[in-house]
Structures are given as structure tokens and as C-alpha cells.
């Protein structure tokens, strides 16, 4: 079983949820920028949440399925089409033998995630299949996909096979099937081109001039065009953000969503391919629950940071995780009952 890359798109990479466990060697986590979308896509095809899928950026690829496949596309809306049909996001889909997946204009967000039952069977490097572009390791030959790449797909799990059989009834004349089940709308992040992300104080917030700290949480910041999977470089409308006194910090660990401010006073939000440690003062930390909003913000988009308490950030995290658990158990119940005409969130 394999899928063939007919056109690679702008930046299509193999990603799982990241390369955890080697950060103390300085090896970055990487993985999907919008980890939520990849997790859901994997659940919808019966995979482990951490299975490798494709991260598709802005201009999508053209992919040929030599054999029938159970797939799901989640995250940003890059106008996916299967053969000549518009492909709905956040659903389970049967792509029959010989079908072609294409993408069009980015309607919302900038990263779509394709999961396929069985996962992309790229060799694991340091316990992950994520592509680490800068080091040229992991994923598919350590690089973005190219025309002619033939990606091997693993054997579907029992859950994937059951989901496929539930979809048999839904097949159209050409063999394409879209699930009736989908994801509860209130579980989905409120993707928007110019998001406001909920943010807690950073470890060095107190080192900033009060005026700078207030401006950071009140202002709008543009995502500069030299931003990438490692970090979003932001530029604010007003002056540079300033420390109370100039000082060199001792480097310490950072994480996804850490907002650091280098001496030029323009903040950088660290993203999936962030370094493991940093020496710039950390003004803020984006709540985990809102990282998908940031991951789907395109170059040139505007981000605002809304301060929330740590308690609230933790609550948002648990609400999101509870929602994912509900979806997972809904899918499991559906597989057990053999009835695919219920919502995956368990509601009829």
C-alpha cells in the first residue's frame, strides 16, 4: 500500500506529534504545527493519535491513491477535492483505488493534515517519524516531499478496518464515501485569519518595562514573512518592547508557544521546530489550547495576545482533552455497535 506524490505542493512534510525524549540532547521536538488537527485526523481513520500523516502548507499537493484508502483531512481549509468532488474536513473518507486528492486556494488557515489508515510508514528516527528539515532527518528522507515520492502506508488497525466497513453503505457510484459522523463543532478551535490567543505570563515578564508589558497584551502583531515552523517573528505597531534594564540572560528551556523578545524588541513566538532552550527573555506563554490558532495563522496575519490566568489555561487544556476523549470513545462505541449513522461525539 502506498500513495504517490504527483505534485508536491509548497511545503508538504511527513509529521507525527513530535520527537519527544531527546530534548536533553538538544534535539528539537518538531512534529505537526497544529497537533490537534493531526490527532483528530488520525482518530477519524482509526489510527493511534501519534501516527505519521502529512502536513500540507498553503499550496497543497496532488496525491494519487494506487489502492483504496481510508483517509481524513483536518485543520486548515485548503479547498481539498477528491477526484471531482469537494472533500469535507473533519470526516472519515474512503478514497477508492485510482483516486486523486488535490487542493485549491487556502480558504481558512494555512495547514491541512492528511491522515491515512495505517499511517505513513516512514522509518522512525529517535522515536519519531517527524521531518526535521533543518537537520535533514526523519520524515521522508529528512526533506519536504517531491514529485514522484511513493510513500509506504502501514497496515490499518482493527479500528480503521471497522470504520471502513461502516462506510461501505455510504459509497457513491465512483466509490467515494464521506462519513456522516464528524467532530462536534464545539471541539474545534475557532480558527480565524487574525486570532486572539489566550496567553499566560512568561517567566521573565517582570523584567520588562510596565509600559512594554501592557503594550504586548494590548497590541496587534503582524506575522512577518520570514516566519517558519521554528518560530513566528512578529512586528508590533509601536516601539520595540523594552526591558527595565539591559541584561544578558542565562539560557534555559523553552516550549511550544513561548514568546521571547530579542534585543531588537520584536517578539518571536516559538513553534513546532523551536530550539530546546533560549536565552532571550520570555515575556509570555501561549496557552496550549490556543496553539492550533497560532499554527493556522498565515504569514501577514495579525495576532493578539489576551492575558489569562494559569488556572484558566489549565482549564482550557482539560476541556480540550476531555473533548478529544469523548470523540475517541464515541468512535469506539460506533465501531462496537456497527452503526455509523450516529455523530462521533455520541449524539444522534
Amino acid at each position, binding site marked *: 500500500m502506498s500513495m504517490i506524490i504527483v505534485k508536491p505542493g509548497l511545503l508538504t512534510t511527513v509529521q507525527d506529534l513530535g520527537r519527544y525524549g531527546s530534548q536533553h540532547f538538544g534535539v528539537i521536538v518538531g512534529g505537526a504545527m497544529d497537533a490537534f488537527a493531526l490527532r483528530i485526523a488520525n482518530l477519524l481513520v482509526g489510527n493511534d493519535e501519534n501516527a505519521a500523516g502529512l502536513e500540507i502548507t498553503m499550496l497543497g499537493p496532488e496525491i494519487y491513491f494506487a489502492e483504496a484508502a481510508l483517509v481524513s483531512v483536518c485543520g486548515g481549509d485548503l479547498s481539498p477535492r477528491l477526484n471531482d468532488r469537494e472533500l469535507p474536513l473533519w470526516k472519515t473518507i474512503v478514497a477508492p483505488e485510482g483516486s486523486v486528492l488535490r487542493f485549491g486556494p487556502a480558504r481558512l488557515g494555512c495547514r491541512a493534515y492528511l491522515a491515512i489508515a495505517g499511517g505513513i510508514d516512514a522509518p522512525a528516527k529517535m522515536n519519531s517519524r517527524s521531518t526535521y528539515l533543518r*537537520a535533514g532527518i526523519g520524515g521522508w528522507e529528512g526533506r519536504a516531499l517531491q514529485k514522484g515520492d511513493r510513500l509506504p502506508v502501514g497496515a490499518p488497525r482493527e479500528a480503521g478496518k471497522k470504520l471502513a466497513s461502516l462506510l461501505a453503505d455510504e459509497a457513491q457510484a465512483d466509490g467515494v464515501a464521506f462519513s456522516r459522523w464528524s467532530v462536534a463543532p464545539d471541539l474545534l478551535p475557532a480558527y480565524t485569519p487574525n486570532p486572539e490567543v489566550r496567553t499566560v*505570563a512568561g517567566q521573565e515578564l517582570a523584567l520588562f518595562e510596565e509600559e512594554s508589558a501592557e503594550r504586548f497584551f494590548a497590541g496587534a502583531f503582524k506575522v512577518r514573512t520570514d516566519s517558519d515552523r521554528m518560530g513566528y517573528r512578529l512586528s508590533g505597531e509601536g516601539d520595540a518592547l523594552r526591558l527595565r534594564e539591559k541584561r544578558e540572560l542565562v539560557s*534555559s528551556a523553552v516550549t511550544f508557544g513561548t514568546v521571547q523578545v530579542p534585543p531588537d524588541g520584536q517578539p518571536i513566538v516559538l513553534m513546532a521546530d523551536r530550539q530546546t532552550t533560549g536565552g532571550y527573555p520570555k515575556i509570555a506563554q501561549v496557552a496550549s489550547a490556543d496553539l492550533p490558532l497560532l499554527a493556522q495563522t498565515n504569514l501577514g496575519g495579525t495576532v493578539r495576545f489576551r492575558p489569562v490566568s494559569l488556572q484558566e489555561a489549565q482549564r482550557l487544556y*482539560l476541556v480540550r482533552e476531555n473533548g478529544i476523549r469523548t470523540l475517541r470513545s464515541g468512535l469506539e462505541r460506533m465501531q462496537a455497535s456497527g452503526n455509523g449513522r450516529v455523530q462521533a461525539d455520541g449524539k444522534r
Partner: protein
Amino acid sequence: MVKLEGLAGNYEKYGEVEAKLLPLGDSAVTVQLGETICRRTHDRVRQLAEHLERHRFPGMIEYVPAFLSVTVYFDPLEALTGLGGHVDTDGQADPLGVVADWLGEQLAKLENAAQTTPRVTEIPVCYGGELGPDLPEVAATHGLTEQEVIDIHTSADYLVYMLGFAPGFAYLGGLPQRIATPRRQTPRLSIPAGTVGIAGDQTGVYPIATPGGWQLIGKTPEPLFLPDAMPPTLLRAGGYRPVPAHLPG
């Protein structure tokens, strides 16, 4: 106005260990073990790292030791469930607090770990020219000649305090103050693998091409990141490493 929220804003005593626990967002806690880079704090950091290598809590993902701290990453839901915290979405659940309590208990148990014998790694460096474009600026900053900067940089023994920033990137302690130089105002977008730099009183080698803000003084042909080996890095925390230099040609 937003305020810096710490789980504990000040150092507290955990048995023999003084530490400050700071949240790094909602899924990580930084255990700060001192304020200045020194051998004593480094030893504490290594003790805690070695302890976490043997003792883990449910939901613990990994830890990252740094100069003064060890940061522990975790899955909040698994940590809450596994450590017996209040699991609910009513705003009362506090995974960070539960993890901080666990870390506090571990800090109180820290024993003095056996010191491993320092391993010495020699790294050949070509200084200046295109390979070290900031060497003239570093020299000018201190009123030294380029050769004097090279001599000073190669005369010292360096301690690998931590790996971080990039795979196999070692933060080395022991840079002579006479050539300590602040980071650049704006980071460069790409620095070639093997480049040797200075930032404040730190020095180090970039193992892969990456953006960075260090002052670049030279380059080594030696690979520092070995993705197919275990451990995947040439340098490892805890040893002294002298850096002898060889000029090009």
C-alpha cells in the same frame, strides 16, 4: 495589569536543596536551582537530571537541564490522573500544582550523585575570515588583535554545562572574561553547521545550520550531531573540553 504568576515566587528549602519552581506555560515546570552559573549549581542540575532519569511521574514526558534549572514537561491530564489530583474542568484542577508537589518531594530526596570522570574532546577550529565573520568585531570590542582573541579562546578549558538550542549544541562555561561579547542585536537567519560563536560569557559550536544571535569567530569540520548514534551528540554534559585551534592552511 498582568502579573507574573509563580507557583512559588521565591526560593524555598526542599530538604537540603534550595529551589524555585516556575511554570513554563500549562504543561511544564522549571525548577530553578541557582542564579549564577557555577560548578555548585551545575552539580545540583546534574543531580536532579540523574534523579529524573530514574524516577518519573505518570504523564512525565521529558526533562531539559540548563545552566541553572531543569525543566520538566508533562501531559497535564495524565499527571492529574496519575498523581491523584482533582480531575475536572470547573477551573479547580491544578496539574501544575500537583506536579510541583511531586517535584518538591523529589528535591528533598536528592542525594549527592557520584561525579563522573570528565571526558575530554578536542575540537579543531579555523578562526576568522569568512568562517568567523565577527572575529574583527569581537577583537575591536576588547581592543585586542584577532590573534589575541584566538589565543585567549584556545587557552581555556571549557565545561559542557548543557546541551540545547540545537541538537548537540553544547553551552560551554569557562570563556575568559577578556573576550566575553554580547549577542548580536538581531539574530542571523542562517548560520552554517560547525560555526564557533560567543554570546556574553558563553562560547559554543553550531552543530547544524540554524538561525542564531551569537558572535561568530570560527568554524570546525568536526560533526557534533550524530542522528544515528546513541547518544546522538559528540559532546555530553558534565566534562571539561579544551578547544585547541588550527588556523587554515
